[in-house]
């Protein structure tokens, strides 16, 4: 591997992993917020309706 290859690999893996973690985070946060809004919506709905 050339020096450029090592540089690209180091930066690519590190930044790529951080970006993937960010995306995973974002989807987890969205899912949790959605679960919570479903739960609170159920709380607000009167029983029997």
């Amino acid at each position, binding site marked *: *591997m050339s*020096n450029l290859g090592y540089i690209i690999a*180091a*930066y690519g893996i*590190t930044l790529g*992993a*951080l970006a993937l973690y960010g995306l995973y*985070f974002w989807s987890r946060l969205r899912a949790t917020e959605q679960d*919570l809004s479903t739960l609170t919506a159920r709380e607000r709905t009167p029983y029997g309706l």
Partner: protein
Amino acid sequence: MLALLAVLIGLYLAFFYAPADALQGNVQRIMYIHVPTALVAFFAFFVVFVSSLVYLWKRLPEADRLAYASAEIGVLITALTLIDGSIWGKPTWGTWWTWDARLTTTAILLVIYVGYLMLRSFVEEPERRARLAALVGIVGFIDVPIIYMSVLWFRTLHQPPSLQRGGASMPESMLFTLLFNFVAYTLVFAFFLVKRVRIESLHVIAETLVGEKAAHE
């Protein structure tokens, strides 16, 4: 957004502002991602250490959540530090890995905090889980100063600390780029930490709501 902008500026500085190293050439530019990620990983475990102490002292669930969030991000960043360090090691030392003091103690740090995360997933009772995790979070941090001092205490392939008291052994442009990237990755860490703590807090609210609903029924 600020963190992303800082990382982009950091990349520009690393590739176009900082000069190539006289001995290693361009491959030394890996330092601008390797050293900041290593320092941010240490900072993440310092947050775990302080939050764990606060938890044991005050029994604040918020401190436990902060420790958990910081440990998770710290594990990711430590793993990335080992990977980019290994990639840097191949062209400069001629090997991907060696059982050198700095590398070994860093690998041990990763194992300790992976253990911390595993412990959290094994213990179900929240108060006991938080207490045991806090103990591991505090004891595990002992490895951080050992890692830092390992290059001075032992004969090692790894270079001495890039930043130390009495000044850095590099030109100002390199030092500025290194420090800027450290700030950039600290901002990335702070962004992840805030979001991760929010996820945990929302989980707790959701669990409380589910519990209350079950109690009503």
